[in-house]
């Protein structure tokens, strides 16, 4: 019951940025270059939500709030949703379905290549997020979903490569991502050492596989 309520709160909260954008769009509040604002805002929120899903595991272990795993899928899907909006803004509002130009862009412009990579990697993750797919894929589900690390790294590089001179904001995202990845590396290293010391108890537990 509590989890259900929390999920509703997170869901509504995650849609506020979109509602804000829409409200401003209809009230002429997006300033001189509305399409640029929409592109940046949807991109920002995709990145924030990707980093949020990556923060769930460390957070639940460090705070012992194990129920948090119950909201991770929804946050991941919300990240994908904002990613879709971001990608749609590019294809529709920016390029106006000029596929030829977009293909050229993806091939020629490293920051677009990176952004596109991140987006494409999110697609299988979203598709296999259902209970049925989790069951069907078994241990491979976990392996597939490690792609979120690659997508996160690609998304941050996408941002770093597109700014003109002021790297402060993309580097803030890079720092958060770095900390979240470092946590995994440390946990992995500690587990590996434990396994070496006590081979008998080195069996994977549910805890380990969730890293």
């Amino acid at each position, binding site marked *: 019951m509590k989890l259900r309520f929390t999920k509703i709160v997170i869901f509504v909260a995650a849609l506020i940025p979109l509602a804000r954008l829409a409200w*401003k769009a209809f009230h*002429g*509040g*997006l*300033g*001189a*270059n509305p*399409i*640029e*604002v929409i592109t*940046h*805002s949807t991109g*920002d*929120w995709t990145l*924030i939500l990707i*980093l*949020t899903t990556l*923060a769930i595991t460390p*957070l639940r272990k460090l705070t012992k709030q194990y129920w948090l795993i119950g909201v991770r899928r929804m946050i991941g899907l919300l990240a994908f949703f904002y990613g879709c909006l971001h990608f749609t803004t590019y294809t529709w509002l920016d390029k*106006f379905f000029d596929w030829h*130009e977009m293909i050229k*862009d993806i091939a020629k*412009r*490293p*920051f677009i290549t990176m952004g596109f990579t991140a987006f494409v990697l999110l697609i299988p993750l979203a598709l296999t997020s259902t209970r049925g797919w989790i069951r069907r894929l078994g241990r491979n589900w976990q392996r597939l979903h490690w792609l979120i690390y690659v997508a996160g790294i690609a998304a941050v590089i996408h941002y770093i*490569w*597109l700014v*003109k*001179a*002021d790297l*402060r*904001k993309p580097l*803030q*995202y890079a720092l*958060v991502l770095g900390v979240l990845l470092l946590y995994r590396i440390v946990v992995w290293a500690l587990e590996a050492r434990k396994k070496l010391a006590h081979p008998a108890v080195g069996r994977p537990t549910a805890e380990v596989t969730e890293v």
Partner: protein
Amino acid sequence: MLIKKPSDVPPSEITPKGVYLNRRRFIAGAAAAGAVAVAGVGLRELSRPGLTVSANTKIDGLQKSPFSTTEPQTPYKDVTNYNNFYEFSTDKYEPAGLAKDFKTRPWTVTIDGDVKKKQVLDIDAIIKMAAPEERIYRHRCVEGWSIVVPWVGFSLSELIKRADPLPKAKFVEFTTLYDPKQMPGQRVPVLQWPYVEGLRMDEAMHPLALLCFGMYGEVLPNQDGAPLRVVIPWKYGFKSAKSIVRIHFTGRQPMNSWQLSAPNEYGFYSNVNPNVDHPRWSQAKERRLGEFFKRPTLMFNGYDQVASLYTGMDLKKNF
């Protein structure tokens, strides 16, 4: 997780009141400019000493220019609320607020280097050097957006002629004020401060090159480069140095700030050129603010009359 909300458009900057005032100011300015044009008044009482000079101060006696485009002008509120002015902030929506208290008086401009008349000129003396003209120019940012602005000023050549450059002066270098107390963006080393830009002497002497101190019939707003800037309409926006304190004549090609920051991306010439892409994005099209569809970018931003300055030059190499 504590991540700062992206600062896309703080509500404080789009208050209906501000928009209202801007719109009123724009209409008033347009009406005033129109009235002046109709009456054809030759009033030259520009910025009398002792008078406060701010963005709302009307400039009288504007002459029309044959260089003006008839394309629709970008709304005043867009040109004054969407500014690439890194001295204040790298966020285009912030200079409008951060430049509010910027002091443009007293203001002097140092003319030095290879000139006969090295001098320190008061801004109000510079403004009175020649009759103010309204020049409605297209302005194309290297980022891929463009605006149409009715600037006020006169040809840069008027000032250069008075400075009387020596034959060895081949380039003109503009330096923007360095004052981190007033310009918070300069407290961060995103570019090397002070901002430096430059032109080849023949480019600077071209009649299109504008020494600018106003727009929309009024004194230049702080966030648009007050009190004195240049406007070079056939080059990307960053070539049009703002809030100038020094005009230096030299035999050596100046190193402009953006070239210094990324030499593979920004060159000295930086002419608007749809055939030479920025290494990271295409320059073939641009978004005119206020328009939904992108439009093709024109060679030299449509100012073909400058083409002869570059005959025989490889513009791919000299980007």
